[in-house]
């Protein structure tokens, strides 16, 4: 009887879900009207499939936009490192700023 009463009892419970400080939301950069004649950057993370994907994408971009210049960046460290002052940070920033648009392969 006591067990049945316990099972039917109402419990007011607290939330296990933590609060987090609100993060300012950021809008993305304006797009270009078209990719012809642009500097197209192709970023590959240090995961094995990323450079293979970018090899294919580079060829396809050249086919579609023969007047565009394609540049590649291959991360040698994890993307987490690139977000901090890693040794490749300067090289990475210089490359990003040299591109008009970037297509990135970052995951697995």
């Amino acid at each position, binding site marked *: 009887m006591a067990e049945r009463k316990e099972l*039917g009892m109402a419990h007011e419970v607290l939330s296990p879900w933590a609060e987090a400080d609100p993060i300012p939301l950021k*809008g*993305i950069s*304006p797009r270009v009207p078209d990719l012809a004649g642009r500097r197209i950057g192709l970023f590959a993370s240090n995961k094995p499939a990323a450079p293979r994907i970018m090899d294919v994408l580079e060829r396809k971009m050249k086919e579609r936009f023969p007047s565009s210049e394609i540049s590649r960046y291959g991360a040698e460290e994890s993307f987490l490192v690139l977000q901090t002052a890693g040794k490749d940070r300067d090289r990475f*920033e210089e490359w990003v700023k040299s591109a008009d648009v970037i297509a990135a392969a970052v995951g697995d």
Partner: protein
Amino acid sequence: MEEMGTPTVSLVNMGFMNDARSAASSRGWPSLRFVAETVPSECSVAEQIEESLEAVMDDIVAGLSRPLTPEEASPKTKEGGSLSRIVFKGTLKEVNQFFYKRGWGDGLPLIPPTEEAVAEMLTGTDLAPDHLVATIIPRMGKATVERIAINAVMAGALPTYMPVLIAGVKALADPASSFAAWEVSTGSWAPFWVVNGPIRNDLHINSGSGALSPGDIANSAIGRAMGLIVKNIGGARKGVEDMGTFGNPGKYAMVLAENEEECPWEPLHVAEGCTPQENSITVSFPNCLWTLWPTATDEQTLLRTLADGLFPSGAGQTCTSVLLLPAHAKTLASKGWTRESLAEFVNSHARPGVAKDFTSPTDGRGEVRVIVCGGPGSWIVLTKGGKGLTKKIELPLHWDKLVQKYKAIVPTYARY
């Protein structure tokens, strides 16, 4: 790349789209553009990459050239983000279903975190309930003492586990643990917790027979509570942020104490820099555990067995933990082996794999930890994964009194 002002589109495997969107919005970039493609993970088959990319070329071009919507250019914060303190009222069954549907559980029944239960859990620390221990990735959720206690109640923990859990949170939040690399990886790395110091006996944390099996409140609830903390405070949810491909049963609980009394060497935490009287928790992140059976128990057979069992390390498997029975440890120690020389033995017999084509090639060498534990029998257990670190456990001033209150809670098994 967007932050530097260059319009970017990211190619994401369809299975990772929820993960990508969650990662983007949690960092303040809700309108990042993604193209969902079907290239299998880690793909090396040219035809599959070709076919998958051909299908999304128009989307890639559009992602870089389609004008922004007003929301993409200037995203607005959604209203009503915070939860009220009492989040639900219902029966045990209703509470469990409510929590499960919210994704706050781990699939097993939960203890309702009522004000009363949480208040009792908070007696396990003298830190204020609103004291912020750390923030936990990926969501940077605030691990206040109270929030830790709420998850501890849900896991069935006793108040005496609070100091261990607080130290565990600090360990995960310490960048030196590299938890960010392990928490959400497809590699399904599970936190493996080893407790050292007098607290082991205060809490009855099993170091002996079946230490890694279910049955001990401390071993089970500490691990389970940390898993709920990672999920509900850190925001790492299976299939959304936690992308473990197969998952890992160790994510329920993988906790044991070292058998310091039977260990012929200095305890693990002393080897990691603590004093013998200090309490500590050491975390590593293995994604595999395998068991070796020595055909005999003499020094040479033990070492040959260990060497035979050292399979090539894969990506991320940079730390080998060797779980050694007290009897085996004593045999080796009597022949002059130390923690350091055993670690060197393991590394000297490490071997690279045949499939060495990876961006982080390894010759198999890495960190090695020896943990003396286990019950009657003659086995050796190895785990491999991320190294993690050791964190000291701080006790509240009223610790002795608190321990006395809960120390009698031990199982008694009836003979049959």
